[in-house]
């Protein structure tokens, strides 16, 4: 019996010592920067959002960083909103394409905490709107004005929208005022959220194939627009500040110059890569070209980037830090 108690004691002491050592080693304050460039390894972590346009930005930036600046690049798939959190903690170093969907986070991190800095225009102008297929607009030319939408509401009825017309929405992470718009413009429509872009695109493709009428929240630049002929429905024109009260919005969406954001720490530590990312600027057409290669031709992002960079050496040269 004594022997056993001794054994137990010994085991307990050993465990206590082991715990104590690990505990002691953990006593200091932990460093926040665990991933990203914070570790000083020189790796740049780019955040990729779920749409293909962003994937195209990141693919090209990655290709140039790796081939012209000899920098290792990691990409991590994050949604728009959480990307800012990742930049704040240093889990990611750059967002290549922000649509202005998280103004609160921008003010918190960029203005208050100064952990995230602006990276300038991407050069691409994003636009959100309501779209109908061209075959439908050809048949009913006046359908492209919101004032006439009520007349056609029955065309867009689905099982989900009931007696109203369906306005198909995409992923919950996208910026949308559509619920308020429908209410304030007194439209006989109902938003139906597809819940993910994959679901929305699948639905659009199927409807388009069957030449069915549909009305959808959609945006440009988008790779699918090269495969589908869509026509925008005119909403009341956007004026500055008309969308400031989310409940009272009664105007269409702005033309948004898409923005880049960088982690402040990264800018300090990796000047060369940061300068390059700040210089990175291309057009809607450029982005569409790469996005279509990825999405429609099913090329790997790396291959698509390689092809585009080789064909546009002059553009790329201007981005490189002197």
């Amino acid at each position, binding site marked *: 019996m004594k022997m056993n108690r001794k054994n137990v004691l010994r085991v307990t002491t050993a465990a206590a010592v082991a715990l104590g050592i690990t505990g002691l080693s953990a006593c200091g304050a932990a460093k926040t920067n665990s991933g990203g460039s914070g570790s000083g390894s020189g790796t740049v972590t780019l955040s990729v959002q779920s749409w293909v346009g962003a994937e195209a930005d990141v693919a090209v930036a990655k290709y140039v960083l790796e081939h012209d600046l000899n920098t290792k690049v990691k990409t991590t798939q994050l949604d728009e909103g959480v990307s800012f959190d990742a930049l704040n903690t240093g889990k990611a170093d750059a967002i290549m394409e922000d649509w202005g969907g998280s103004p609160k986070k921008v003010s918190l991190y960029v203005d208050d*905490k100064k952990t995230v800095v602006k990276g300038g225009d991407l050069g691409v102008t994003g636009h959100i709107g309501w779209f109908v297929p061209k075959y439908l607009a050809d048949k009913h030319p006046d359908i492209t004005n919101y004032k006439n939408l009520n007349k056609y509401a029955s065309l867009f009825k689905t099982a989900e929208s009931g007696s109203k017309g369906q306005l*198909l929405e995409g992923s*919950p992470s996208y910026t949308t005022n559509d619920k308020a718009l429908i209410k304030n413009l007194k439209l006989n429509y109902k938003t139906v959220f597809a819940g993910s872009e994959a679901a929305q695109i699948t639905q659009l*493709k199927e409807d388009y194939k069957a030449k069915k009428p549909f009305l959808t929240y959609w945006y440009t630049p988008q790779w699918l627009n090269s495969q589908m002929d869509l026509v925008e429905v005119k909403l009341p024109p956007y004026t500055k500040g008309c969308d400031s009260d989310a409940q009272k919005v009664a105007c269409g969406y702005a033309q948004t110059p898409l923005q880049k954001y960088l982690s402040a720490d990264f800018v300090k530590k990796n000047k060369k890569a940061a300068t390059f990312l700040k210089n990175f600027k291309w057009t809607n057409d450029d982005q569409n070209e790469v996005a279509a290669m990825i999405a429609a031709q*099913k090329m790997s992002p790396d291959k698509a980037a390689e092809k585009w960079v080789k064909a546009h050496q002059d553009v790329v040269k201007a981005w490189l830090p002197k």
Partner: protein
Amino acid sequence: MSAVVTPNPPSTQTEVAKEPARAGARSALSHPVARRLLPLAVAVVVLAPLAAVLWGSGSWPHALTVDIKTPLDDAYNWTVRNRDTNPVFLYGLLHLSNWADSSVSSVTDLLENLGWFPVITITVLLSWRIGGLRDRRGLKLAGVTFAAFAVCGLLGMWQSTMETLALMLVAVVVSAVVGALLGLGAGLSDRFERILRPFLDTMQIMPAFAYLLPLVVVFDIGVPSALIATIIYAAPPMARLTALGLRGADPGVMEAAASLGTSPVQRLLTARLPLARKEILLGLNQTIMMSLSMVTIASVIGAGGLGEEVFQALSTVDVGKALAAGIPIVLLAVWFDRLTSVAGDRLGAGAAPAGLRWLHGWRAWTVSAVSAAALSVAGWMMFIADWPDTWNVDIASPVNNAVDWFTSHMASGVPVLGGTRTWADNFTLWILDPLRTGLTDSPWWLLVLLAAVLAFLAGGWSACLTAALAMAGIGVFGVWNHSLDTLSQAIAGVVVTLVLGFAIGIVAARVSWIERALRPVLDTMQTLPQFIYLIPVVAMFNVGRSAAVAAAVLYALPAVVRITTQGLRQVDGATMEAARSMGASTFQQIRQVQLPLARPALMLALNQGVVLVLAMVIVGGLVGSGALGYDVVYGLEKSQLGTGMTAGIAIVLLGLVLDRTTQRTGKRSAAR
């Protein structure tokens, strides 16, 4: 319409009702069910009119809601602002998060730096050794291992597979240790088990998405959150089975050990634990399977690996590519499953060595290790470390073509029947809509009462109390209507799952070649990430609640089919023989003998169906189910902790209601 549809859940409930009455105390048989309900009925007669007078009989009364969204949003903002300065984070949680990061990334680095050839060699030889070097099973296992890893490489997923494998290994080790310790406590102390059980129940009912959000708030996006989410999900089976194994130790052996004068510690180490090794190994197996099923969900919060590949493929609506990333997950599951089950068999058989000495025991380990090292070095010098791209096989385009063809023909091309899109519309119009209207139009107190009565009939007073409180909680948190919307979808999903599952299960139990043919299909369905069938489901059923129900049915069906088949198979052969000799037709045999005798299994199938359908609510949110599923996704993607968390809690509460109203007490430990 609601009158036609709503009877469905009560009809299953009457079966539940009879069961406890019969299984309960024999002396209580003289008391009719109504008698047992008497106290409840008295309470209702007093309370219901009072509640109706005070707060009306419509939707949940506003006066009885508590706003938890604002404090949750405040908490979120506070955390974000103070995460870098508060000592709790700086000295505690951040260490945890950094440890998680570094341990996963060191395993990833190790696997990646080793290169593909040494990794395959080592895993194959290790599997061979575990299966037994002189054993045919060992050779077979080695073959399975080789095939699994080779296919991962051929699909062009080598690097992602390694990332996932690294996260998995760390998650499994930690879950197993945590689970084993909890199980040890629960196996040795009754009080500890009583405290632990509700926690384990909650951990398993709660959809993983619900706790992703708070984890992200505290640990930020990335590996730590993913790792902890996986551990929360995967540790319970290990704890449960360890406890079960320890409790099931043969009393004779324990008595013998005690009479030899051993101390409690010695008894534990030399008798109890070895006796429980089969259960513990089964627990490990379950833990591995659970953590693999978290791979895709974890990548929503930045875990990387195969899950991220699946998501990236989805963003370009590329089913084929998503499948190419999903197959390695299935293969890893198959490999781990075989590995642990072979190891379990060998442990169970006991060590009965025969043949050459150096092929078992520690010598065999040495042989395996040395040859693995030698081969690895040789391979490493001959091959380049990266998997050669030229070996990759592209399955994406043929798969996409096949899926396109299938969905477009099913969607609208079926003559007479109209195709799945028409069915989906009708399902929404004639089943989901009336069900939802029926639920939302019912007086709130009636629904709370209904939950209480059904749970009482199924599991007695404690179940009744839990169900009623959970139902009321949904109202109190202000998500009454969204929850009822989700509930209507869940009920429809469960009914469809059970009808299909029982039908398939009955056929499979009678015709053995069908069962054999079904088994790999069911295995694949259970391990394939659910996100892969989002696109085909939308293509066939349109965006909306029908698509969500279809996805849930696909997910829950395998378990129901399996349990039904197994339950029917276990019906005593002599009873069946007797029925046959009395001239019962096949139909009579099924209806009057097999089904009644298999009732416990069928009830378990019902309960599992309910839990699994509810687990798919979130995936439903990604295909247009709206309601709670959408709210959780919205909360996660827009960092709205208030909305997301409240919806997550509501799903847990719905889960509790559904679980308690379908699960019989007394069978609980056997059921899990």
